[in-house]
C-alpha cells in the first residue's frame, strides 16, 4: 500500500479498574483521509481517542502517530506532537474564562513567538473559516451550541495541524448546521490536506465525509475498511448500523 499511515494502533488494551473497555484494538488511519470510528454508546470510542491523544496512560499496545512511537515521548517531544494535532471536544471545551478570540489565540500565543497583531490576524482568518468573525469578543457562555462547535473547530485548527481529531461533533446539531460543519471538514481535508479521525453516529454525515470506517464492538475492531466496503459488509453490528438507510428507502416508498 502506498498510502502513508498517520496513525497506527496495534493491540491496544484499556480498562478502568476491573472493567475492560478495550481488549485488543488495531487499526490504521491514512494521510488525507477521513477515518470514522463507529460503535455503540459505551463501546469505548472516546476511551480509544483519549489513549491516542495521550490523555490516558497506555499499558498494553502500541500507538504510532506520524510514524513516531506516541507512547514513549518525553515532555518536549510530547509538546511537539500536540502542536501537530488539533482536537475537537464534544461540547467545545473552550476555556470559559476567555473570549472566543482569546481561546483561538491561546495555542498561538503559548507556543509561538509571533507578534501579537499577527496572532490577531490568524485568529480572524480562522474564525472567518468557520463564519464566526463576529463572535470574536464573546464569551463561550454567550454562544449557541452550533456556534460553540464552530469556535472549537477554529481553535483546533489554530496551528494548522496536519491531523484533526473529533469526538462526536454532530451531537446535538440540527441537520442543516451539521451539513455545514461537514462541508468545513471536507474543505479542511481537501484544501489543507488534513487527515481527520472522527467519532460520530450521524449516518448522513458519515456518508458525506467518510473515507474509512472502523467499527468497535465488545472491545475490539470488528470491521475496518472503506466506506463502500462498510456499506456492503455483512458483520452483523455494522449491517445493523447502516440499516437505517434501508429504513429511509422504505419510508420513501411507503
Amino acid at each position, binding site marked *: 500500500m502506498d498510502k502513508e499511515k498517520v496513525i497506527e494502533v496495534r493491540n491496544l488494551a484499556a480498562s478502568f479498574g476491573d472493567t475492560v473497555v478495550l481488549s485488543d484494538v488495531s487499526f490504521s488511519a491514512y494521510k488525507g483521509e477521513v477515518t470514522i470510528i463507529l460503535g455503540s454508546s459505551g463501546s469505548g470510542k472516546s476511551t480509544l481517542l483519549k489513549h491516542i*491523544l495521550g490523555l490516558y496512560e497506555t499499558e498494553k499496545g502500541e500507538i504510532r502517530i506520524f510514524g513516531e512511537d506516541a507512547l514513549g515521548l518525553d515532555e518536549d517531544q510530547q*509538546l511537539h506532537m*500536540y*502542536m501537530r494535532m488539533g*482536537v475537537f*471536544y464534544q*461540547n467545545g471545551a473552550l*476555556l470559559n474564562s476567555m473570549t472566543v478570540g482569546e481561546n483561538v489565540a*491561546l495555542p498561538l500565543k*503559548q507556543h509561538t513567538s509571533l507578534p501579537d497583531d499577527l496572532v490577531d490576524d490568524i485568529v480572524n482568518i480562522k474564525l472567518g473559516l468557520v463564519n464566526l468573525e463576529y463572535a470574536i469578543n464573546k464569551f463561550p457562555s454567550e454562544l449557541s451550541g452550533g456556534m460553540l462547535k464552530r469556535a472549537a473547530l477554529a481553535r483546533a485548527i489554530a496551528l494548522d495541524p496536519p491531523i484533526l481529531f473529533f469526538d462526536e461533533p454532530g451531537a446535538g446539531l440540527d441537520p442543516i448546521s451539521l451539513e455545514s460543519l461537514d462541508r468545513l471538514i471536507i474543505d479542511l481535508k481537501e484544501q489543507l490536506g488534513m487527515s481527520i479521525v472522527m467519532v460520530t453516529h450521524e449516518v448522513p454525515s458519515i456518508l458525506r465525509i467518510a473515507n474509512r470506517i472502523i467499527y468497535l464492538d465488545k472491545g475490539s475492531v470488528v470491521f475496518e475498511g472503506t466506506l463502500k466496503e462498510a456499506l456492503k459488509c455483512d458483520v452483523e453490528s455494522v449491517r445493523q448500523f447502516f440499516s437505517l438507510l434501508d429504513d429511509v428507502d422504505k419510508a420513501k416508498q411507503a
Partner: protein
Amino acid sequence: MKKKSVSSDIILKNGTKYRLDNQTLFLSGELMLPVVPEFIRKVLKRIKLQKSGDFVVNLDQLDNIDSAGVTSLFYVKRKLGDAGFRLRMEGGNETIVKKLELFKPEKFDELPPEAKIGFFELVGTGVYDFFTSYFYGFIQLAANIFYFAVADLFRKKVRRKGEFANQAVLIGVNAVLIVVFMSFVIGLVLALQSAQQLRNFGANIFIVDLVVIGMMSQMAPLITAILIAGRSGSSIAAEIATMKVTSELDALKTMGLEPIRFVVVPKLYASLLTMPFLIVLANVSGIAGGGVAAYFYLDITPEIFINRMGDVMRNKDLITAFVKSQVYASLIVLTGSFYGFRVVRGAEGVGISTTSAVVVGISLVIVADSILGLLFY
C-alpha cells in the same frame, strides 16, 4: 360465619375481587400499579392462613397487567417461598404471558450478590485508601505543583499573561474587606472578654500584650487562612473540577498546555504573595479592634496602647506570621486543586469536590497551625 366468606376471596378497595378457591387464586380484571401494594399485603396475609404448601395463581381471567403487577406476583412468590409455600402461575392470554416474560425479575437474579463489608474491613480499606490514593496523590500533586512553580519562576514565556495579576485580585484584593472586618471583630471580642479579669487584678495594661501577641502570633494568620480557605479554596476546587468535567483540562493538555502550570501555578503565586499582606492587614485591624475595647472598657488611651505595643511586639512573631502565611497559602491552593482534579464525572461531583476542598483545607490549616505553634513557641 362472616370469617369464612372473607377468607375465600380477596377484595381490594376499588372493588376488584380475586377468588381464592381450593388453593387456587383466580386473578381477574386488572393488576396494575395502583392496586399492587394492597394486593401484595392482602394476598400474603390470606395465603399464610392456609395450611398446605402448594398454590396456583390462575391468570386466565386477567385482562391487563403492568410491570408492577408482574413483579408483585414474583415478589409474592419469593416471599411465600421463604415461608415454606410453593407458588405456581398458570394460564393467561397471550399478552399476559408476554408481559410475564418481559418483566420477569428473575432475569436479574443472577447478578452476584454484593459483598457485605464488615466494619473492620471498612475501616481498614478506608485507611488504606487514604494512604494510597489520597496521601500519595496529594504528595504527588504537591510535588508537581511546586516543581512547575519553581521552574516557571525563571521561564517567562510559559507564563500566562495577566493571569497572575488577575488571580492576585481574586484571591487577595477581593478578600481584604472580609479579612479586615473579621479580624477587627475578633480583636474586639478577645479584648472585651479578658477586660473584666484584667481589671480585677488591676492589670489593665496587659490587655495590650494579650491582644498584640494573641493577634500576631496566632489569631491573624489563622483567621486569614480560614477565610481564604473558604473563599479561594472552594473557588479553586470548583473551577478546576468544572474544567475537568467539561473536558477543558483535556483540551489544554492536547494544546500542549500543562493544566497545573496553566491553571494552578498562577493561583499559587498569587496566594503566596497576597497572603502575607492580608495577614498584616488582619493584624492591624485586629489590634485596632482590641484598642477600641481597651479604650472604652479599660481606659487605655491610644497613646498608651501604642507605646506599650512597641514594647510587646517581637520580631519573632513577624517571622512566624510570614512562615505561616506561606504554609497556609500552599495548603489552601493544594487542597483546592487536589479536590478539583479528583472530581468524578458529572456536575454534582463539582459540588462534592468544592465542599471537600473547604472542609479539608480548613482542617489542614488548623493542624498546620498547631504544629507550627509548637515549633515556634
